């Protein structure tokens, strides 16, 4: 699972309570008191509602502070974009804050800011997520606003053009002027070439410049329907009233009757399968004074057992100062890198597993590549043992608890599972899976990953020639 996803795999007992509030004692019913992953037991008092139009809603009360977190997950991301429209989903995410039928331009941000809340959104290849952290007395109004912008958005031409410029600035900041952003984009484009993941979530400059509001309105109408959304609200809420407000605001919204058929077409597994072997190597010119690199292998889709094993493999190899690659390349007697990391990035229908790092001044890039390729052929024997496996499971346990400190953490945790797997309670299986993973299993997957000749070495460096 990707790191963000992994970190949010957490457990919570009855509640996430603020520290100023009445705090339950450890060990009381519903609170987690596990000593290890195996003994974790979660009791999440979630009320799940499904409206006739298909909208799914998860509610959980935590009355300790007068605040709540509100998450909306739309099952639409960059993978739904066709040629010439890369960046459309992300552009639409920006425009969702620019006014809807009953709440004009500027209202949303004013409402959030003037009540002391905070909000933002993000778009990935698979989904678009909106979130607000707000004081409790704003909930009824917030529900109405969210329903209104799900129903219709204004896309006022002036705001549309202004936001186009903002997105081009974002693109410059994240990718054009960042060697790491440049590398990550090139990596996914090569690994997922020929599949719906082979584009770019932020979009190409050309496509961003060419997007028009008619296309975006169509996109909104298709994908921002109640049967394509999950809402999660956690905090100081009255479950009965909240449920009533939700029903009143969202029930009138029509479902997209054609969505299931459309998605069946988009979600055909075969279109996500690799079309060809990856190019063995790519050198990109970028303004990095030391070479940065990524060595990528085919990954796994979200939710597969093998994806969980690859999480553990990535952690053993690259998480923390005691990890194998850190000791070998960064802190050991003969360091070659100033930093190293290993990531297992899972998407809904595909994934990538990669090692990344930055070379020290005196390290030769070709020689390091040779060393790395040799090392990965031996790493499954040298790096993985019972202690490193147990260490990783211990670290996951702590991560879980840390993630559950806030209402937002819990909302994100529940919403991701409901949105991706259709059932927020899949966390139970996930925990069982992590806990059941054995040393032999990690070693087998390790050999499969690093034994594959379908891999791709990418480097970015100021000394690489510019493309003509």
């Amino acid at each position, binding site marked *: 699972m990707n790191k963000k996803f992994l970190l949010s795999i957490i457990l919570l*007992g009855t509640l996430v309570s*603020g*520290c*100023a*509030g009445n*705090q339950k004692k*450890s060990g009381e019913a519903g*609170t*987690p008191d*596990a*000593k290890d992953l195996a003994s974790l037991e979660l009791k999440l008092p979630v009320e799940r509602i499904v409206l006739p139009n298909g909208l799914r809603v998860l509610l959980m009360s935590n009355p300790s*502070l*007068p605040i709540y977190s509100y998450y909306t997950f739309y099952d639409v991301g960059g993978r739904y974009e066709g040629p010439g429209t890369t960046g459309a989903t992300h552009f639409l995410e920006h425009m969702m804050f620019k006014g809807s039928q009953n709440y004009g331009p*500027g209202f949303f*941000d*004013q409402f*959030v*800011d*003037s009540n*002391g*809340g*905070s*909000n933002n959104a993000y778009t990935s290849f698979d989904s678009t997520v909106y979130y607000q*952290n707000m004081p409790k007395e704003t909930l009824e109004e917030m529900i109405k606003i969210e329903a209104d912008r799900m129903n219709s958005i204004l896309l006022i031409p002036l705001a549309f053009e*202004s*936001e*186009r*410029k903002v*997105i*081009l*600035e*974002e693109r*410059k*900041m994240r990718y*054009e*002027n*960042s*060697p790491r952003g440049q590398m990550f984009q090139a990596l996914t484009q090569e690994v997922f070439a020929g599949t719906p993941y082979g584009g770019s979530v932020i979009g190409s400059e050309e496509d961003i410049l060419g997007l028009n509001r008619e296309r975006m309105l169509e996109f909104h109408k298709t994908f921002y329907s109640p049967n394509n959304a999950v809402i999660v609200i956690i905090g100081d809420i009255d479950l009965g009233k909240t449920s009533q407000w939700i029903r009143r605001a969202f029930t009138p919204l029509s479902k997209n009757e054609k969505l299931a058929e459309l998605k069946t077409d988009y979600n055909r597994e075969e279109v996500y399968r690799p079309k060809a072997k990856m190019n063995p190597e790519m050198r990109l010119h970028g*303004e990095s*004074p*030391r070479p940065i690199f990524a060595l990528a292998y085919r990954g796994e889709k979200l939710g597969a057992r093998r994806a969980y094993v690859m999480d553990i493999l990535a952690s053993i190899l690259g998480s923390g*100062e*005691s990890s194998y690659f850190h000791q070998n390349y960064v*802190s*050991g*007697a003969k*360091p070659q890198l*100033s930093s190293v990391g290993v990531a297992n990035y899972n998407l809904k229908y595909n994934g990538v597993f990669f090692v990344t790092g*930055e070379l*020290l001044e005196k390290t030769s890039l070709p020689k390091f590549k040779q060393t790395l390729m040799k090392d990965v052929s031996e790493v499954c024997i040298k790096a993985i043992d019972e202690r490193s496996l147990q*260490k990783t499971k*211990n*670290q996951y*346990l*702590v991560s879980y*608890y*840390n993630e*559950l*400190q*806030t209402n937002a953490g819990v909302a994100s945790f529940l919403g991701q599972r409901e949105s991706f797997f259709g059932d927020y309670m899949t966390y139970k299986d996930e925990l069982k899976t992590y806990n059941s993973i054995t040393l032999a299993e990690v070693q087998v997957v390790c050999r499969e990953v690093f034994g594959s000749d379908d891999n791709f070495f990418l480097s970015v460096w100021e000394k690489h020639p510019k493309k003509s």
Partner: protein
Amino acid sequence: MKTFLLILLITTSMNLELRAQENIKRFDWDGMEVVWLQDERFPTYALSIYFADGALADHPQRRGETAATLNLLTAGTRRFDHRAIAENLEFYGASYAPYVTHEYSTYSISGLTKDLIPTVKKICHLFADASFPEPQVNIEKNRAIESLTSLVSDHGSLASRAIRELSMAGSAYGVPVSGKIADMKRIQPTHLSQKLSYLNEKVQKRIYLTGPESVLAVQRVFNEECGWKNQKDLYVRAGVEIKIEPQDKLKIILIPVPNANQAQVRFGRFLTKSMTSPDEVVTLTSDHLGSGFTSVLMTELRTKRGLTYSTGAFAAAQRDYGRSGISTSTKNENLAELLNVIKASLKEMSEGKINTDHLARTQKGLAGSYPFRFESSMNYLSQILLLDHQGRDLSELYKFQERVLKIKQDEVQRMTTNLFDWDQMVLVVVGDKSLEKTLKEFGPVQVMRPDSVL
């Protein structure tokens, strides 16, 4: 409606104060002060060891000694090498990291309560026996130097590092707490051992701890294994009065980097203690100017003109000094327009041309955000630590909401001049060298190489 909201907010504040105070207890552990924030939700803990001295104590030729000492505690002891130490702490799932400011330092640890005692025992072992083996120290020094060198490709981080140094140039606070590359090269293991002895034996320490009641069992480990007792008479860095010479006009510095099509823009100002008070007016002013999606700068730069993806303003204080600043970016062609809009926005606010409704919304928003300060125990504990360091009463935290709601518009106007006077600030732009021409429209430009701030 407004009266109702005021009453509601103030009532919330009073309730929170009562409830929050119930969970905070102060102890004397054999002469060492301990603040415990009780949190029974999870079987986890977080703690910070506070040292009443920071980077100001570093040798002028070896700035960054304190940070290097605390960072390299895990480099090795007489019994364990770096790999063994890291493996042991990470096996528990523990996190551990120092944080050094000019005035004070902390070392923070967190993990599962069941592993608290062995983890803190290991940390005490490091404080008692860290030997800073030269080969490992050299590896880590080289790594730190390489990371700084690479900062030239991270324009935003380079600009932020530069503005901090250049807006406080000439004062001891202008030097980065982790030192510069030249400092790092001069630091030797013997200097680190001396600094560690100083922190262990001479400097006053306090413990800030959060977790369930069982975490209090760690007292014996701190007292016996770290040997930290009777801290009362140990050294506490004394407060100093800072004087800042006024500037004639905005100081402009360009740091050219190759092939950048976007300029990273930072404004900064060094503030005296008196300029950062009262803190609720400082926060309201900087929030109104540049916090959230409806701030003055966000509205003018992003919403109305699409000049930038993000912008923000801040003002914050330690005990003896403070800093204010503005951060944004824009494509090269738009730099002049962006700077003109910022200049006009600051001028309007300092002349009192402040939209009353907008300010009222910011004020209500700042007051309304108050409960979020307590959502995370570690965040709450950090606020207590800072108030203690500043010598301020905890009640100031609880009265914040009430004080925010009493602020008048003319106070914000005056504070804008205090914090964000165009002529008194330093402007750093990291971007293409061709931007020098644009910047000259705003005054004389000093061009500095990126490595001059590394």
